[in-house]
């Protein structure tokens, strides 16, 4: 797909929620309304610390009805790549930052007859946006939140507004005493389970549910998606006689366009086949749905819009 449009927001409020959690409220920097946030969606924040640029994804926790602000909750992570530490230490109310459009890879399922939510630690965040909707629509749900004993109070407070609408339990005693199989086994037909948290928890939910006969289509794990970018590389355009640099978060097509070359394209998502270009040298990491397996193996062509170099350089007939 094309790069999503960018939104400029101002940090309106920073609220500490616990020892390592802070809630940030973001408002449109130039007035107006933000795009309707989807329950389960995340946004990509672009954070600039001097010359260093960090991109971090955070789930939106504010309700879909609120278009005047987005809210995220950020945990300061010890082994942070820098984004969460930056937000905790350096970000100030009034700062303006760029965010991407909301992307939703963790939606609620419209046909579910019951929604079972299982969160671990900060994995509560997308589930909070689900809870807003479930409560507002009067839908049937059950929520289990696992956490360290010292944080149980923080999560109980976050979940308090939804307690009357459905069954909510905070398990501050760790995984050992949490009867995951028992909970999954007693769910009525038509239940969907949604889980977000540490990888081990999400895997435990998925494998336990599968073993109990849950179909894959009713087990949902939060994911911020495959990174559409990848390692930077160079593409030599043989016919034009120029070399373009393809950045980490940029597609080859975007890099070619930025260099002023009018490349063929249509769908910009690896489906239509319009941007197929012959490869003269180099190995391609194919990410499209257009080329056949044989064509991909022969390494004779690349779809500019989604695929990348596997090595440092490609030479293209363009």
């Amino acid at each position, binding site marked *: 797909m094309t790069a999503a449009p960018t939104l400029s927001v101002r940090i309106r409020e920073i609220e500490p929620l616990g020892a390592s959690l802070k809630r940030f409220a973001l408002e449109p920097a130039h007035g107006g309304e933000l795009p309707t946030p989807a329950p389960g969606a995340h946004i990509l924040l672009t954070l600039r610390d001097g010359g260093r640029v960090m991109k971090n994804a955070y789930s939106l926790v504010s309700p879909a009805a609120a278009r005047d602000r987005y809210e995220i909750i950020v945990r300061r992570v010890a082994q942070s790549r820098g984004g969460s530490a930056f937000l905790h230490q350096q970000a100030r109310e009034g700062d303006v930052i760029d965010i991407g459009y909301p992307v939703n890879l963790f939606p609620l399922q419209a046909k579910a007859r019951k929604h079972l939510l299982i969160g671990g630690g900060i994995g509560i965040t997308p589930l909070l946006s689900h809870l807003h909707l479930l409560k507002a629509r009067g839908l049937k749900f059950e929520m289990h939140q696992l956490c360290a004993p010292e944080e149980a109070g923080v999560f109980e407070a976050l979940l308090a507004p939804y307690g009357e609408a459905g069954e909510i339990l905070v398990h501050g005693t760790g995984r050992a005493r949490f009867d995951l199989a028992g909970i999954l086994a007693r769910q009525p*037909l038509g239940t969907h389970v949604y889980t977000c948290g540490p990888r081990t928890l999400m895997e435990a939910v998925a494998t336990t549910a599968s073993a109990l006969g849950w179909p*894959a*289509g009713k087990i949902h794990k939060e994911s911020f998606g495959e990174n559409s970018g990848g390692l930077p590389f160079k593409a030599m355009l043989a016919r034009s006689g120029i070399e373009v640099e393809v950045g980490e978060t940029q597609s080859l097509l975007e890099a070619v366009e930025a260099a002023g070359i009018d490349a063929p394209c249509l769908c910009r998502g690896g489906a239509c086949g319009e941007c197929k270009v012959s490869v003269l040298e180099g190995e391609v990491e194919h990410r499209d749905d257009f080329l056949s397996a044989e064509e991909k193996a022969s390494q004779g062509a690349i779809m500019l819009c989604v695929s990348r170099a596997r090595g440092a350089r490609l030479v293209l007939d363009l």
Partner: protein
Amino acid sequence: MTDQGIKSRPRYQPLEIDPAGRHHLLVVPSEDVPSDAVAEGFAPSAFEVWTVVRKSALPPSAITEEAAGTVRAFRSPAHLFSALEERLARETMGLRLYAVGPEDFLWDVYGVGEKAGLSPQEMRFTHSGTKARRIFCVHCRAVTEKVTTSIVTCSGCGASLFVRDHFSRRLSAFMGVQVDAEAPGDVPAAEELYA
């Protein structure tokens, strides 16, 4: 049978257990599971089986037990469907629902399962017995049952309907379209295709 190349027409596989399921309920509109419809190695004892005997004097039995290997009979397909709705409403995740029989029966079962929250991944159907079709007239919405010919007179509006391979799982029926709509009276001879 002809193939009009339309992809909505269901394809069926011989009946086989889905090992991912936790319990397995098989419904058939006959007294026994048709032996020609099952895959090699099929073991009826792994299923709870519901059958239809078409007898009003059949004594009633509890529908709530779910032990594999039990066989429970019903007086008619409608009797079975009514019990199935009740049963599915009490079921927990992990159930797999199977049906073997004529096409209209299969997709009526699908409708009951779907209403109870089952997804296509939790249901398996195998066609057995008559290939007669249920036809939904796209012009008047009347349903014509047990159609075995390529062209049939609509039971509702009387149009000569071409039996199209386009199939609606929701309606459990194929589409009927007036064959002489453009040139009234120009009706080709009907062929016996779905006996």
